[in-house]
């Protein structure tokens, strides 16, 4: 028996999502730091503006932290400008301390540097700012975070370390102003009334301290999270807090299905990494919850599942009354249904196809760029002499000179006295890191045994890249599609795993592969990584850009994407793997501006050294 996906249009209605977003605001007001905060994914536009306006109207302390903030402003420290100006020491409180009992708002959170995120996350988790050099005691500050994520769907979002700790993930990407039109008009006249009155707020906060979840509810929450493939234990914890706040908002002492449903929609659903296992499959899992409670419960019927969400909505309207206590399974069913119903359709498809996936699809871009050497990224300045490649870092130099002004009796001359030992130089990372994009032909013409050879060679390449601390990205193409087998990563283990699972056979959609490689390259370029393309193929394209057969059209499509690559100016290497190399691949390679290397028998060592040559042509 397969479970039907809940019809997406049942409740992923834009208006409902908008209402959830507004409810989240009210919950923030009741419990600003309990559930971490909100990660709002939406482009700049009227919808987001509206939400932010409502956020500002809440009456909570709201501190905006721009990406350019320095650590002294963030955590507190010396106010350098003021200090230099007056010659007296001036300290400033950090933005995080100012945000105590309020919210920290991070615009363009997806662009924040790891150096900024790390102390923020630390403060968020511990509820205090670590002692700095200037204060021996840590200062307590509890705040929630509102992270505004403007990333496009194919771009990496907010750093995983931060996103993980923010309870509510809202996606208002596809909402247009007309979707929220219903309250748009009347709101224009008088604004949204989201702010709770002081009395109501105190009542709700009092209530919050007493909201209790019963065992079944906890159980259901954990099971639902597990079923959706959410491994982290922080997530159900945050969901529970959110559900409690939701109950408090509605003036209840005990959690109800409604509260859990809201938490499932806002916390669990956006993090889902797998389609919940079938009831039959669930029984094979190590800890089937049937063992623990009410064993008589039969596996749920699909119809019941689909009805759950509307039922839940209907409950909201009528007086709850004393409904029969739902069992843990019912609750879990309800939560999973609510979570799935709130997902947009394309996400559902993605989940369906990745059934049983264990790891989240991206391990966070921040990780790669952090350790990576990116061209033009400044490093912290260091003491040193300017000249040659080193440039003077004026601010750091002044900072170094500032404390010694009295010693040097600068006031007598009226100038800032700077000595050589104060000089700080700017540092950039020298070598831009590169990423090897491997386009791997897994089609039938590339023959299975040769694919195995290629895999061996690729492993050698991966090892080399590892030694160079470069990242690798693999695009495999066969049949009617090119597949991003492995997004840019430095983890060899992942790369190898991706390679071993690669099947062979089918047509050669070369154009699709080149297109995907091109897209990947553009994305890497934006991150400051130099892409290098290595194509392992015989060049006999026979699948067009549309995924249809047709040799002539396929060739011309491949040619046109080859030209695109040439226009981008990135380096490329074409390794012709056919037994009898012919002009076709060579011509395509020259169109791309790629080096061409026929290699009827894949020789790992030779291939590796060829790639090495492409990578560093000057040597």
């Amino acid at each position, binding site marked *: 028996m397969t479970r039907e996906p809940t019809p997406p249009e049942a409740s992923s209605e834009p208006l409902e999502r908008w209402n959830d977003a507004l409810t989240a605001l009210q919950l923030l007001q009741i419990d600003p730091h309990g559930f971490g905060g909100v990660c709002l994914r939406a482009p700049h536009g009227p919808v987001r503006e509206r939400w932010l306006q409502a956020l500002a109207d809440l009456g909570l302390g709201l501190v905006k932290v721009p990406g350019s903030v320095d650590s002294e402003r963030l955590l507190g420290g010396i106010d350098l400008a003021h200090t230099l100006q007056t010659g007296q020491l001036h300290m400033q409180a950090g933005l995080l301390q100012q945000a105590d009992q309020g919210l920290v708002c991070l615009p363009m959170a997806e662009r924040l540097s790891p150096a900024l995120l790390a102390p923020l996350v630390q403060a968020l988790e511990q509820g205090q700012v*670590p002692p700095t050099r200037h204060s021996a005691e840590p200062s307590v500050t509890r705040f929630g975070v509102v992270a505004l994520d403007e990333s496009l769907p194919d771009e990496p979002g907010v750093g995983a370390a931060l996103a993980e700790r923010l309870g509510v993930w809202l996606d208002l990407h596809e909402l247009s102003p007309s979707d929220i039109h219903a309250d748009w008009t009347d709101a224009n006249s008088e604004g949204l009334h989201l702010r709770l009155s002081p009395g109501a707020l105190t009542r709700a906060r009092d209530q919050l301290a007493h909201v209790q979840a019963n065992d079944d509810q906890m159980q259901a929450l954990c099971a639902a999270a597990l079923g959706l493939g959410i491994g982290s234990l922080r997530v159900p914890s945050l969901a529970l807090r959110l559900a409690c706040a939701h109950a408090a908002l509605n003036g209840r002492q005990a959690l109800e299905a409604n509260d859990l449903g809201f938490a499932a929609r806002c916390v669990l659903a956006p993090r889902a990494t797998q389609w919940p296992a079938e009831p039959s499959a669930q029984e094979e899992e190590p800890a089937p919850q049937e063992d623990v409670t009410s064993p008589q419960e039969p596996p749920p019927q699909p119809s019941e599942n689909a009805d759950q969400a509307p039922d839940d909505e209907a409950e909201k309207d009528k007086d709850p009354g004393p409904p029969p206590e739902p069992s843990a399974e019912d609750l879990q069913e309800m939560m999973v249904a609510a979570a799935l119903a709130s997902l947009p359709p394309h996400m559902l498809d993605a989940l369906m196809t990745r059934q049983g996936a264990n790891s989240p699809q991206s391990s966070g871009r921040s990780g790669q760029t952090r350790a990576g050497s990116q061209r033009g990224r400044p490093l912290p300045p260091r003491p040193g002499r300017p000249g040659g490649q080193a440039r003077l870092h004026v601010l750091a130099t002044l900072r170094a000179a500032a*404390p010694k002004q009295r010693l040097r009796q600068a006031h007598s001359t009226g100038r800032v006295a700077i000595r050589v030992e104060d000089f700080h130089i700017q540092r950039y990372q020298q070598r831009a890191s590169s990423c090897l994009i491997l386009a791997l032909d897994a089609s039938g013409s590339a023959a299975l045994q040769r694919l195995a050879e290629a895999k061996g060679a690729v492993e050698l390449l991966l090892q080399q890249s590892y030694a160079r601390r470069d990242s690798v990205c693999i695009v495999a193409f066969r049949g009617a599609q090119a597949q991003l087998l492995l997004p840019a990563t430095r983890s060899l*283990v992942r790369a190898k795993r991706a390679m071993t699972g690669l099947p062979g056979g089918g047509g050669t959609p070369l154009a699709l592969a080149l297109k995907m490689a091109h897209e990947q390259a553009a994305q890497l370029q934006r991150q400051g990584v130099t892409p290098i393309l290595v194509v392992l193929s015989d060049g006999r394209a026979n699948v067009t850009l549309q995924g249809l057969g047709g040799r002539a059209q396929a060739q011309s499509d491949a040619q046109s994407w080859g030209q695109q690559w040439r226009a981008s100016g990135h380096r490329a290497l074409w390794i012709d793997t056919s037994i009898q190399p012919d002009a076709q691949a060579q011509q395509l390679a020259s169109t791309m501006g790629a080096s061409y290397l026929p290699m009827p028998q894949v020789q790992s060592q030779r291939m590796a050294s060829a790639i090495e040559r492409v990578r560093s042509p000057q040597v």
Partner: protein
Amino acid sequence: MALTFPFAAIVGQDEMTLAIQVVAVDPSIGGVLVLGDRGTGKSTAVRALADLLPPIQVVKGCPYRCDPAKPAGACPVCQARDPKSKVVTERQSVAVVDLPLGATEDRVVGALDLEKALSQGVKSFAPGLLAQAHRGFLYIDEVNLLDDHLVDLLIDVAASGENLVEREGLSVRHPARFVLVGSGNPEEGELRPQLLDRFGLSVQVRTPQDLALRVSIIKRRDAFDKDPTAFKALWHKDNQKLQKRILKARELLDQVEVSDDMLMLCARLCQQLGTDGLRAELTLLRATRAFAALQGHKAVKPEHLQSMAPLALRHRLRRNPLDDTDSGARVQRSVQEVLAA
């Protein structure tokens, strides 16, 4: 001061909690590396560390928290004091210092004290995180993503036990003996082998898949979040018990005997696994001894070795970077073979 989740209340993750306790018994083992996914309680366990250890005696007013019982190797402040004057001591809890990823070099090693320089025109040294972590723990979350220049610093200090600052006209040498605790997700990046080597034990954590276990974790977390003080009080007794156990183990540590047979076993194991250098043997030996002491045994037995070998050796195997089999299993297999031989 924000309250931390009580150590005794941590459910599951037995290997991790065990490793932390073993290191608490004998800090000379050299630290713990915890690798695993997010949200598995890594940082919770580390931050709860302070619970395990009794307060230490420190010289009052000393920024480096020197040990009054060991005047040798003292910090500049204590050395400057008149040796005849009576040392005033106070009790402080063991420090667990966080080293955030983006920390500057100044912040880590210490730098010129701007405040004093500006207000009094005095050139003096403001200790950094390394000084704060002296005699305590230095915790680095996402250690695999740490900047290279910080890694270099740490490698040096962790090996020598002292921090040497020669910059901005300062020349300071102060003790910095700390237990390095790192955590991270290996999928996001690998650790430099040199840094890896500085960690005595390494643990792999996975998200518990057992539903009942997960529920109980969430329950406790919720109870703690609702009322940290009450929750802490509830677990105070168990925490005390744990603390006593560790104290007892520490006393016992010197009496634990390691027979020559056991030494041979350790050596043979390391040989078979092909670990580099002698550090592996030493660490394994210390860890096994500490574990025996923790169990209240006066002699090291093969089963102690069996439990400690994966922790102490897992990250020291010369590994094909493409090989993703669990090194712990490999160690376990070798232990079986060596014990059987």
